[in-house]
Structure formats: C-alpha cells, structure tokens
C-alpha cells in the first residue's frame, strides 16, 4: 500500500500535532507527575504565604503569591520543557533524527510549546483553585476579555521566548543543566512572582519586562484582585501593547535564531556530541 505523503502546511500541522501529542497524553498517563507538579508549587506558595502572614502583610499579597505560584509552572515548563529540551533530545540521540526528518524544526518547537502549554495550564488552574481555597483568596475580575487577552498574549510571548532560547541550548552540553537552574530564582525575583513588580526600581522592572511573564502577571493581578490596580507597574492597555510587541519579537527571533544555530551546530558537528 502506498502511503500518502504530506508536505507544506499539512506536514507542518501534522508535525505540530505529533510533537504536542506526547506532551499532553504522556503526562496524563503518568499520574504521579501531575501530583508532584501540583503539590510542589503549592508547598512553595504556602511557604511564601506564611512569610507574608508572619510579617503582617495585607491579604491581597496572599492572592499575589497564589497567582504568581501558579505562573511559576509556566516558567518551569519553559526552562525544562522548552529551552533545555533540545539538549535532552541531543543526550538521548533524538536530535539528529529531528534534523534528518523532512519536517520543520519550528513545527517541532511549536508542537512542544502547544503541548507543554496545555498540560501546564491544567496544572496552573488546579494550583490557583487549591491555593485560593486553602488561603481564602478573593477575586474581583475587572474585565474578563482583557484577562483572557493578557493571558493569551503572555503565553504566546513566553513560549516564543522558550522557542528562541531552545535554539541556544542546541549548542550547549553539560552546562545546559546548570544554566537552566540558574534561570530559576533570579527570574522569580526579577519577574515579581511573589510580590508586585512595582516594588522594584522602575528601570529594573522595565528590564525585567523583557520576560513576558513580568508584564503578564502584573496585568493579571491588576485585573483579578479588588485593589490590584493600585499595585500595577504600568496600565493594563500599555502592558497589552508591550506583550503584543514581545510576541512578534520572540516568534521572529525564534525562527531566525533557530535557523542560524542549526546551521552553526551542523557546521561545528555539535548535534550528536555528548560531552558528559
């Protein structure tokens, strides 16, 4: 029997679905991962909530921590499931197969992003739900359409950033692990996962706004908490505009950088190396 050969857009879409599939299905099959990925962030969220309670913070801050703790799941997915993914693929010998196959690397990265986004979003919803229930967080959504838009744009920009950085990791070896680990706490700090970003110096906050979660989280906090706008760094429309620009910049950057890095990695013979 002759197999139907896909090409062009059809092949691109099939590749995206094929790479997203294991992200979604595989993770749901391993139920214990779901437990760990929900339970672990909840422990951190609880610790920071109790710190705020120990120093007598207003209750709004508890909500900030719960929402920030849920968004940590997306950053972790970007670091370990997107950026360093090509390093893992190289370690396991899959990377050469990806390059050899007649599909686009952008489609593979997009599939990873969509699959990871879906699986992580499920966990984030549960973390917000449980955290809100445990700590009695109250919400007052100012504009639901704006909230959806902010979340969508933040995710597009964030996963665009993940796709872009994954091509850099294409060249890395053992240091990939350490560099991904290095991008945890400093980003938690700079992006204001556990406090309003307005608390930082203006220019530090502006610099941190290059990470899409910074503005996304700030805008979401303004939109879902009763006194959220008093803690906002920039106004929500400005943050939406900035997220649109970041989305375009990171997606374009991902395409350009991936093409360049792939050529470089092939030229330097680093696609199959494992410098353990």
């Amino acid at each position, binding site marked *: 029997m002759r197999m139907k050969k896909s090409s062009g857009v059809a092949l691109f879409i099939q590749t995206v679905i094929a790479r997203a599939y294991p992200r979604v299905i595989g993770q749901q099959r391993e139920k214990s991962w779901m437990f*760990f990925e929900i339970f672990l962030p909840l422990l951190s969220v609880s*610790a920071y909530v109790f710190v705020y309670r120990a120093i007598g913070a207003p209750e709004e801050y508890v909500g900030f921590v719960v929402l920030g703790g849920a968004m940590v799941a997306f950053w972790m997915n970007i670091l370990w499931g997107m950026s360093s993914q090509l390093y893992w693929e190289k370690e396991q010998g899959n990377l050469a197969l990806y390059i050899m196959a007649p599909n686009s690397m952008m489609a593979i990265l997009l599939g990873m992003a969509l699959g990871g986004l879906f699986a992580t979003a499920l966990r984030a919803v549960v973390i917000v739900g449980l955290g809100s229930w445990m700590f009695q967080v109250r919400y007052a959504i100012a504009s639901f359409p704006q909230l959806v838009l902010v979340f969508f744009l933040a995710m597009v920009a964030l996963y665009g950033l993940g796709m872009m950085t994954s091509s850099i990791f294409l060249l890395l070896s053992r240091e990939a*692990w350490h560099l991904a680990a290095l991008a945890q706490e400093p980003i938690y700090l700079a992006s204001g996962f556990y406090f309003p970003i307005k608390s930082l110096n203006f220019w530090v906050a502006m610099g941190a706004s290059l990470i899409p979660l910074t503005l996304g989280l700030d805008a979401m906090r303004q939109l879902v908490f009763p006194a959220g706008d008093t803690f906002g760094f920039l106004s929500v429309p400005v943050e939406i505009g900035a997220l649109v620009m970041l989305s375009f910049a990171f997606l374009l950057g991902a395409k350009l950088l991936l093409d360049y890095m792939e050529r470089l990695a092939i030229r330097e013979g680093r696609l199959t190396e494992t410098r353990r």
Partner: protein
Amino acid sequence: MKPSTLNLTLFNIRILWRSFKIASWLGWQVESNWTDPFLFAVYSFVKPLSGAAILVVMYSVITKGDYDSPIFPYIYLGNAFYIYVGQLMNGISWAVIDDREHYKTLKYIYTAPIHYPTYLLGRGVASFLVASISVIVTILFGVFFLRLRIDLAQVDWLLFFSSILVGVNMLAMMGLILGGVMLLLVRHSWELGGMVASALYLFSGAIFPLDVLPPFLRPLGYLMPITYWLELLRRSLVGEVAQAFPTLSGLNNAQLMGILLALTAVFAILSRSVFRWCERRAKELGVIDVVTNY
C-alpha cells in the same frame, strides 16, 4: 564481600576512607568543571542571593524596610542556612541518578572495591563546599547591605561550629535515605529531592516561626531535626534576637542540642536500614543500573 555491610576493621576503614576521598574529588570535578571558574563563581553566588532577595523584597515592601525588627534576622538567617539542606540532601541523593542515568557508571561503581554509601557521602562533600560558599556570601550580603547585625564578639562560636558539625551529619543521613529511595525510583527521581526540600522548607520554620502554621501542622515541624538545627544556628549568631520568638523559647541551648543529637542518631540508624533495604530491593528488581532517561 557486600560493600554496604562492611565491618569496621582497619582494612575496611581504609576502604571507607578511599571511597570517601575519591568520591569527594569526583564530586568536586562534576560540580565545578562544567564551566570556567568565573561562571562557576557567578552561578554559586547568583542563585542563593536571588533566593534571599525575593524574601528581602517581600519583607521590605510590607515593613517599609524595617530591618531592625527581630523577624528579619530570623527569616534571613533561616533562609541562608537552609541552603545547606537543599544542597546536601540533593547532592548526595542525586549522585545516584547522575551515576546511573547520566554517566551510566553505577554498575561499574558497584563492581569496584568501594563502599557505596560512603561513596555517596563523599559525593556530598562538593555540595557542602558549594553550599558553604553560598551561605557565607548570603550572610555577608545581609551584614553589609541589609543591616543584619552579627556581632562577632557576641557570637557563640562553640555552639555555632558544633551545630554545623551535627547538622551536616544529620543532613548527610537524610541525604542517604533519599539516595536509597532514588535507587528504586525510575521516573520520579526528579521530583523527590525537590518535594522533600520544599516540605522541609515549609515545616521546619526556616523562614517564619512555626507558630504561624495552622496548629494541626505544627507537630510536623517539631518532628524535624532541621527546626532545632536552624534555631541553634540563629541563637549562636544573634542570641537574644532569636530567643524572642515563642516557638522554642522554653528550651535552652543544651536541650535543643540534645534533641538535635537524638534526632540525628535516629536518622543515622534509619538511613542505614533504609539504604540497605532499598539497595537489596533494587537488586532484586533489577533496577540498579536502569536507564529511564530521567
């Protein structure tokens, strides 16, 4: 000869020392030679300082920078010394995964004339050194930039160093328990260390007094040796400030040290039993050299 069940004869002490020494050297190479010294130093400083800075910003936003309040050194020092907990426990236990799955050398290690639990403890030495650098840098940052008041003349150095000594042994025993469990884990190894470290962070009163926890959770904190260890370290460095909190104020330093020593002894016995059981079980299941791609 079963490597994990050596008796302490002179010959075997040599094996233990050799296992420990070589593993320490190997651990240091693995931890540090992935990059140049500059980037390694940045890596060693930036992570702990960022973790501390999150708490400092949270604290200063709420208290408007009141660093003279006793709760500040409580939080800051607890967080700084907690670096040892994550690093040591993970350093020892993650060596199992590193050797088994990353370098794929665990089977060779098992066939070599070394004592494996001692080897794992040796692998933790590098983590201890890296953690020590991070702790010192974090505390110095607090002293120079955040008005963290540590009067060197007032520090109870004997209490400090004896607490460090007992605490490091206690953490090593806990790491060995985790290492034993790691021998049996095939796909959950990634989460285990993080889960234990996060749980201990929450329940040991590292960054807030245990009284802040809901009453039904507090007993968990009292069962953890880390709770007493951190209290002793705080008392040795900033004595009166640390004793201002009611959680353990009914206990004097000798009582705290007694509890810490007793719990360390319990964990030492537990680690021996748990590790031997896990090791035997891993051999029976044939997972001692399993590769699961993390």
